[in-house]
Structures are given as C-alpha cells and as structure tokens.
C-alpha cells in the first residue's frame, strides 16, 4: 500500500486524532515525507534503509482484547508483557504503569526528543498507535523486564514515556518476541531524574521477516547515570538509534552495543550524546561482527556545548569483517565547543587478528575453533557486569552465531 493510502485509510485509528495540534503536525510531517522534502543523500536516518522499505507497507493494527499480564516475581521484579504495544494498567507504591489514552496529547507534544531530525521518528509520529507510560517513584529499587510480543503482519508504532524519579535504581530490560512480517517502530523517551541510576539492557533476536526500529531519547539530570547495552543477534532488520542529553552536572551516560550479522542482514546504529552541563562523562562503544553479505553502519557523535566544561567523552567502535562481501561504515564525530574537555574516539575495522590466529593454530587449535575463540574474546568485556539471566542468553546466542560460521 502506498504511504498515502496507509495514512488516509487509517487516520481515525491513530492516537490523538482528536487533538488539533498533533493532527496538524502529523499533516505537516506527512506532506514533508510525501514531497520528499528532505535531504535524501546525507540523511543518517536512512542509512542502510531504503526509503521505499520505510514508506511502502501494509498498515495493520488492532488493539488486543486480552489483558497482557504483569507478573511480580519476587518483590521488586516486574515482568511486563506488552502485546501489540499494549500492557496492563497497574500501580503500586513503587511504580505506575499505564497505556496511553487520547487525554495524553499534551505529554506527547511536550516530550523530549521531539526536535530530533529523524525520518523514522517522523513515521512513528504520523502512524502512532500505541504507547506506554511508566513512572518509577522516588527511591525505588526495581527490575523491569519488558517482553514485546507482536502478532503476524502487525505494524506497531509505539511511543513510550518512562520517568525515573529521584534516587531510583532500576534495571530495565527489553526483549522482543516477534511473529512474522512485523514492523516495530518503537520510540522511548526516558527521563532519569536526580541521583537515579538506570541500566537498560536490550536484547534483540528474531527472524528475518521482521523489522525493528528502536529509538531511545534519554535525558539525564544531576548526578544521574544511564547505561545501555544492546545485543543484536537478529536475522531481521534492526535499527538502533540512541540519543542522550546530559542536562545536569555530574551525570554520566554509557551507550554500548554489539551486533552479530550474517547472511544478508542489515543493521544501522547510531549513538549521539549531547553534553549540556559541566562535569559529565559519556562513553559510546559499539562492536560488530559481520559475516556473509551483511552490511552495517555506526554513527557516533559526542557534542559538547559551550558551557559543558570538564567534560569527558569517549567513543570506540570496532568492526570485524569475516568475508569479502560484507561491509561496515563508521562515522565517529566529535563536535566540541568547550575547551576544558577530554574527548577521544577510536575506530577500527578489519579481519580477526591474523597473528593471534596464527598463534592459536600453532598451539594445535583448528582454524574454525581459533576464530571462534577470538570472536568471543572480542566482546568479552561487554559481557561483564551482566545479570546471570541475560548473560546466559547472550552466551547461548553467541554460540549459535559462532556455530553457524563456516
């Protein structure tokens, strides 16, 4: 179906179709996309995505009748099922969870990250059909496991707003259980208030007919900390775009990612950290392994505004290409307007270390085994400090990936 058909046929189904301001904005974005009134060539949001992939699809969405479970495992572990973008409304002394309603339009109009120039977010805005609010109350110490389930052929355009009030300590985990032929355009707006510590683990593994566009916009206030690890083992298409703004002093943010691609997998990654305040620290590290005909890109950007003195910002990207047919593009940017800073980036792309391979083989390890050992060691650092559950999952996926290597 064309973009226009999708937009017109379903316009009543979208959230906030009652809100004049948002409807108008939708209209504007739609026109911009329809007229292709944007820079197509240098558009980072379109890297490794064809515009037609993004715009030609069959819009399919019905809200579910069933009420997905929230299971409290132990006292502070919440297993939250999200089916086709919808979860159960729930509240206790630590947390408030609810689905978006038409009354929330103002919250959406005012959310952070609305100004990010990104076509995928534009699509999210015009086709928005679901959203979840999570408000973690002050001083709470929780673990939230989110499992996203999407039915066959469904197209999810979801915008979630998560707020972590002062002095929380939360481990947030996202997993995806996608059926076939689904599109999942999920945009998170995450607010980390003073002194809160949020760890976000994202685990991606699904079959090749599915597409996931995951975007997070995080704002960190004073003395807060946000660290994110994404692990992409998916056969389908994944776009991981993660933005952070450090708005309060002494905040820190870490955006890490690993991806393991094979066949004709595509994957587009971006991390972007803006330092708006003094004495903040950021780290961006992405590592990727590409096999067969896989193709990936990684944009990283550290932006230090004029008043963000005493910033430390570090970036690192490493890519390993296993065949002659895969390719990796990386663009690590530093944009710096304050002078008292320590910023750096490093980027390497190449094969596995030949001399290490030689060394291992000289000790009698066969080439394939040696290769696997080296790849495993490549991401070893990233597997530290993970909880057992996710570490096991990653190890399992890693060994599956490695056993598929020829």
């Amino acid at each position: 179906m064309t973009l226009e058909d999708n937009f017109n046929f379903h316009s009543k189904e979208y959230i906030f179709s009652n809100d004049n301001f948002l409807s108008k904005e939708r209209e504007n974005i739609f026109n911009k996309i329809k007229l292709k009134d944007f820079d197509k060539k240098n558009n980072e949001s379109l890297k490794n995505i064809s515009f037609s992939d993004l715009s030609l699809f069959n819009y399919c969405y019905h809200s579910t009748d069933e009420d997905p479970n929230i299971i409290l495992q132990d006292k502070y572990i919440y297993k939250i099922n999200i089916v086709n973008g919808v979860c159960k409304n729930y509240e206790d002394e630590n947390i408030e969870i609810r689905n978006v309603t038409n009354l929330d339009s103002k919250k959406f109009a005012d959310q952070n990250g609305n100004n990010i120039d990104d076509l995928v977010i534009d699509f999210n805005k015009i086709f928005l059909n679901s959203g979840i609010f999570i408000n973690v109350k002050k001083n709470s110490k929780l673990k939230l496991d989110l499992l996203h389930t999407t039915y066959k052929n469904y197209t999810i355009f979801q915008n979630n707003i998560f707020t972590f009030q002062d002095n929380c300590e939360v481990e947030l985990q996202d997993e995806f259980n996608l059926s076939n032929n689904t599109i999942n355009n999920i945009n998170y707006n995450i607010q980390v208030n003073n002194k809160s510590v949020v760890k976000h683990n994202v685990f991606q593994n699904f079959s090749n007919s599915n597409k996931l566009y995951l975007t997070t916009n995080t704002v960190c206030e004073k003395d807060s900390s946000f660290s994110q690890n994404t692990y992409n083992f998916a056969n389908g298409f994944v776009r991981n775009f993660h933005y952070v703004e450090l708005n309060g002093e002494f905040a820190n943010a870490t955006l890490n990612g690993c991806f393991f691609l094979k066949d004709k997998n595509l994957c587009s990654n971006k991390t972007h950290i803006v330092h708006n305040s003094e004495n903040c620290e950021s780290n961006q590290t992405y590592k990727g392994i590409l096999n067969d005909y896989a193709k990936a890109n990684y944009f990283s950007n550290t932006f230090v505004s004029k008043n963000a003195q005493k910033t430390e910002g570090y970036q690192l990207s490493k890519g390993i290409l296993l065949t002659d047919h895969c390719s990796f593009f990386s663009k690590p940017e530093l944009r710096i307007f304050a002078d008292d800073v320590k910023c750096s980036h490093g980027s390497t792309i190449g094969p596995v270390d030949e001399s290490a391979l030689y060394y291992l083989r000289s000790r009698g390890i066969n080439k394939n085994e040696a290769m696997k050992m080296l790849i495993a060691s490549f991401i070893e650092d990233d597997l530290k400090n993970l909880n057992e559950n996710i570490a096991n999952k990653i190890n399992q996926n890693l060994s599956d990936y490695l056993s598929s290597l020829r």
Partner: protein
Amino acid sequence: MDIETTKTLDKYAKDKYKYGFVTNIDADRPNKGLDEDIIKFISKKKNEPEWMLSWRLNSYKKWLKLPNPQWANIKFPKIDFQDIYYYSAPKGFEKKPKDLSEVDPKLIETYNKLGIPLEEQKVLAGVAVDAVFDSVSVATTYKGELEKLGIVFCSISEAVQTHPELVKKYLGSVIPPGDHSYSALNSAVFTDGSFVYIPENVKCPMELSTYFRINAEETGQFERTLIIADKGSYVSYLEGCTAPQRDSNQLHAANVELIALEDAEIKYSTVQNWYPGDEHGKGGIYNFVTKRGLCKGKNSKISWTQVETGSAITWKYPSCILKGDNSIGEFYSVAITNNYQQADTGTKMTHIGKNTRSKIISKGISLGNSQNTYRGNVSFLRKAEKARNYTQCDSLLVGNKCGAHTIPYIDSKNNSAVIEHEASTSKINEDQLYYCRQRGLNHEEAVSLIVNGFCKQVLQELPMEFAVEAQKLVSISLEGSVG
C-alpha cells in the same frame, strides 16, 4: 580560565598579518562577471588552441548546472560570481617576460618582501620557484638547469603551448571538471598555475616551488597545477600563498592534480597563509581548493603536507586515489584558526588497489571565535586486499569561544583490509605549561613551544627550508608579536 591564559589570548587576538601590503601596479583586466565571452577573452589572452577553449566552455556549461557543495561546516554569505574579476594581469604581460630584466621591478620587490627572491643567484640553494601574481606566472627560476634533466617546470599556460599532448592527456583526469561546482569553475576560468613533468627515472634534484599572490582587489584567483611524475621518478613540490589585507572577501579556487606512475613519488607541501581577515572577521580569502592525487602505477606514492594558518574560510581536502597495487597515500596537516576563521579541511583516501596503504595525521588548533573541522573519508573498495589505513587526528582548543570538530567517514568493503582511526580533543595540558614555566619560560613561549610540539609529526614532514618557516608561522599565528 586563568588570568595568564586570558592575557595570552588577548594578545593572540591582536595578531597582525604581515603580508597584508598592496603592490601599486597597473593591472590589465576585463570587466567583472562570468560568461562565455570572458572565457574566450582569457583563452585568447593566453593564445590557446581551440581544444583548450572548448574544454573551458564545456566546463563552464557544467558549472552552470552544479550547485555549490553543502557538506562543510562553514558559514558565509552567498558568493556573487558575477561580482568578481576573473582575470587580472600586471600591465605589459601580454607576452611573458623572457628574463627578469623585463619584469617590473615593483613585482620583484613584492616577492622580495614576501621573502621569495626571484633573482636566481639569491634563490635558496635547491629551490626553483614559479611565482604567480594574480593571474599570471611571473617568472620561473632555474629553468635551464632543470631542462638538462628533461624536467619540465613552467606555467600551465606555457605548457599548453609547448606540451599540449601531456596537458591534453592528464588535465582533468584526476579532477574531472564536473566533479563539483568549484572544480567546474576552475576548469572554465583557470588563469595560470604550474606545470611539472618529471621524466622516467629522474629524481628531481631540487625542490620545485610556486608562490601565489593575490594582489588586485575583487579578483578571484583560479590557478591550476598539474604535476606528472613518470615511472620511477621523484619530485618534491612546495606551494606558498599570501594576499593583501582588504575588507572585502576574495575567492581563491585552485585545482591541483597529481599523477604518479609506476614507482614514482610526489611530495606536495603547502604553507597557506592567505590573509585571514581582521579580528572581527572582516575580509580575508575564501579558499576553496580541490587537490587530488592519483597513484596510478604500482608502488607509487603521493604525500600531502599542509600547514594552514590563513584564509577566512579554508575548504580543502587534498586526496589520494590509490589505484596502483602497493601504492601509498599520506596526508599530514596542521590547521590553526584564530579570530573568526573557519576551516573545514581533511582528506579522502580511496583504496582501490591491493596492498595500498594510507596514513593521515591531522592536528587542529582552534583559538578565538574560530571553527576548525577535520573531515576525512577513508574507504576500502572490494578489491583493496590487505589495504591499511592509520588515521590520527588531534585537536587542541584554546579558549571557550571556538569549536573543534572531527568528522571522519570510514567505509570498508574488504575483509582483509584494516582501518585504524584515533582522535582526541583537549585543551593545552596545564601540567606541561607548569613544567615549562617552572623552567623559566613565560606563558606565551610555553604555549608556543607546546603547540609546536603538538604539530611536530606534521612539521617534520616538510622540506627543511620550509619547516623552519612553518614553525615560525605556527608561533606567529599564536603570538601577538610579528617579527
């Protein structure tokens, strides 16, 4: 920021440009603006053959259709291409002077003031100079000596007459006129520049040098340089530039093409010190330069070294296309921006052949209200087996009104190739300043010493005579004092 740093900064901000004088000399120039007639006028002035004129006219047609490149991190008012003189020559240059006695003494004096004596006996041992004044080449020294070795070193206008087969074959072969709008513009209106041909297996015994000078007001300078190093040859080429101090902006859009055949090596060094504008950002040269080298043959090597301290805007990316197997490309750059200067500079290394290697060392220093961007593109194409790249770009910020930006594009399509990229941005290390001052150096001397140390990896790539000059230039760009 401590008081000392502020003081030193203020001093830097008052930096004055010592090459800002104007030579009063009658210029022969047609009306402003660009159209086919002007191109025909230039071509006629230079007595060019028909093929050259039609090449220019084709380029002009391309230019009309091409938008200006937008990628750079620079801001400036739209250039009115109809408000520029495209040709200016000191009067009496219809025919190139045969020897220096025919050159206006005022011109010779100008070059003397710039520290480029043209009289051969005074020329630094081992440097042959081609001096370009506005649009024409004034004199080429040491020509006779070079001729004995079969080396051709002359102005490009002369080469069109004397070596048309080489010019025809190679002009535009590395930078096609339709590459982007500035290359099309240059191809249409280029007025002069240098031509070098080094025959097979000849190692050029001296540094070849061009000195560019923009003198006339509202004049664009569009020189074109073409250097061909035949099999097994070697040449080292130096380029220097200055312009008078004027309130209006002047456009400089040069094209430089290098071709290295099998086993040949070209070393190209630039010290760019065009007028940067005043401390409020008024005036200065817009330097939109395209430089590209083709390592055409196996085992060839092209090395770019640049020290960029001048110009209101610097937009240049000396690049290497590494086509021949085992060929090597290098880029060494120091870019210093002060006041309201903007620099967007870097390189492009395109690895096509097997075992090709490239190395990029870039040092950016931003002061005052300036913006300094490194933009580099390293790509390995599918056939670039075992290719290697190493990139290091470091930025130094002095003061919190300036910006330093590092924007690399890294693309690998070959799994046996290795790219390594490192970059850092920081301010001047306080511990180093303390150490130097504890040994009795004042703040300004200490800054200059540390910055020169920071740039050393690049400066040491320059030929000896130039390295000392460049070192001074770096200090001058930082200090208030002008020697």
